[in-house]
């Protein structure tokens, strides 16, 4: 399935067919079905969806001018293979951008969990981070 990034905020995982708020006429939202005979009985059926929480837009952090001379943390989120992948990335930086310092760290806890101590360390000692997920 192709995703358009520009549509993501409005879609939020919900079908575009569901975006209207007044009662929707199901026929209008489909593409492949012939209109029903006008004499056929129509029904009004309820939406089964729950209520998602509001989304707070988070502005991205300002970018760096260059990576030269900077320290980048390579953070393994814990999925299988992610750590080894980032260690190869360290080798890549060593060969191709030797003036970049890389620091490898494995994030504490399960993959969705925050690691405040590591975030603090990166903020104090690093200039940027790359977080990698395996599989």
């Amino acid at each position, binding site marked *: 399935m192709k995703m358009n990034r520009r549509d993501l905020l409005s879609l939020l995982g919900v079908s575009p067919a569901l975006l209207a708020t007044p009662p929707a006429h199901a026929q209008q939202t489909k593409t492949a079905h012939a209109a029903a005979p006008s004499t056929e009985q129509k029904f009004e059926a*309820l939406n089964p969806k729950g*209520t998602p929480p509001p989304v707070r837009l*988070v502005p991205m952090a300002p970018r760096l001018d260059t990576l030269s001379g900077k320290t980048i943390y390579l953070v393994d989120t814990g999925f299988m293979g992610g750590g080894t992948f980032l260690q190869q990335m360290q080798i890549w930086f060593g060969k191709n951008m030797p003036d970049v310092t890389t620091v490898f760290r494995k994030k504490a806890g399960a993959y969705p969990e925050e690691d405040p101590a590591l975030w603090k360390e990166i903020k104090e000692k690093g200039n940027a981070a790359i977080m990698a997920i395996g599989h």
Partner: protein
Amino acid sequence: MGLPTAPMVTIAFKDLALTNAAKRGMPHQRICFTPHPVWGKTDAQMYAYLEGNDPVSGKPLMKEVIDALTKPLTAEESLSGTSTPPVGAPTFIDTSDNLQQYYLDNGMTDFMPIILPTQEKVDAMLKGTSHHPDEVVGKMTPAQGAFPPWSYTVKQCAVNAVMAGATPDYFPTILANASTGISALFSSTNSLVSAAIINGPVRDKLTMNYGIGAMGPFSQPNATIGRAWTLMSKNLDGGGIAGETYMGSQGNIINYNNLIVPENEKDSPWTPFHVQKGFKPEESVVSFFFGFCVTQGQGGKGLGMKPVPHFHEAMSANCAPFASLFGALFLCDPLVANGLGDLGFKTKEQIGDWLQKNTTVTVKDVKTMLFSGLPRGPEAANLTDDMVIPKWPKPDAFNFVVVGGQTNPYHQLGNLSYRLSVSIDKWA
């Protein structure tokens, strides 16, 4: 962190990563993609990924990573504020056939026909509970920590219950399920399974089947209470979208209506499961399990022994391949439970203790297993490869529910862990 960050994801998780970033308020997050998989690849293969292209953009991967950290932000990337995700119109109007197609096309079904949730049918369903239609029942997410949870009301649960084919008297059990916030379609690559054990008077009140064929398609309450759980897990939390909020690589047939197990308390020699968890026998309770799949236990060591088959040996052998990340749930026909009693296992706790001591594995083998771990703590330092240790450190990893119609002394078993038990009566 307030620092530029480049997240990296394999191509198989593209839709999940993009939609989840949007749901978390960063719809333009600069995600860089690698080929899939990373797991199981050699160092040389991983390095080749880095030297190759991002499979989404088609541009050199490491250039994408560097650009993600250094390219100036666009106006869209700097936006702040709040938005409320839309979930669509409150009602849909059309003919019966078109509505069926509409619900199906928009991912609101299990891809089988539904009962259309008209206002009349939903109102009738709401009569099955004393709770107000607008009362918030709980919050659910396809994966805790990964997706922000959605909330839902009694009425929203009722819509799903109607769609599943449930009747109003089933509704308190469905609400009890919903109140836990446990999704039956947990978003893991592991195609996980959820189970609900039903105990107490509600089983007979609803004429649930706990006898012959109890876990098959032979009972309306068993079938539709389970189906409602799946539909709620798709609709109440935005879950069950394959590739976005459901990532089970192969999926699991049990997810259609889940493992709904009313315990056969009448023919069981053991304490009912809910009483084990501190409820009174006269209370109606649903208890939840979660984990890998369910398998049969017909064959196995000891079952040919006479006069009483050595069920305990078979149960141990059958659960031995399980991952110790989850426990073992045994679904025993009453003939098995009574047979175990004849062998001296008078309680569930006794058979659990025996299985914990006698289901063993070598340290060397554990080291090669996925989702099984070695003991932690001081004793870990003294482990050697040839040592034989219990696969599960505690007896509470083993749970037992009696179900079946006594046509043969069989058991089934799941690599499942107990999660919690909740009152059904509370939702009546």
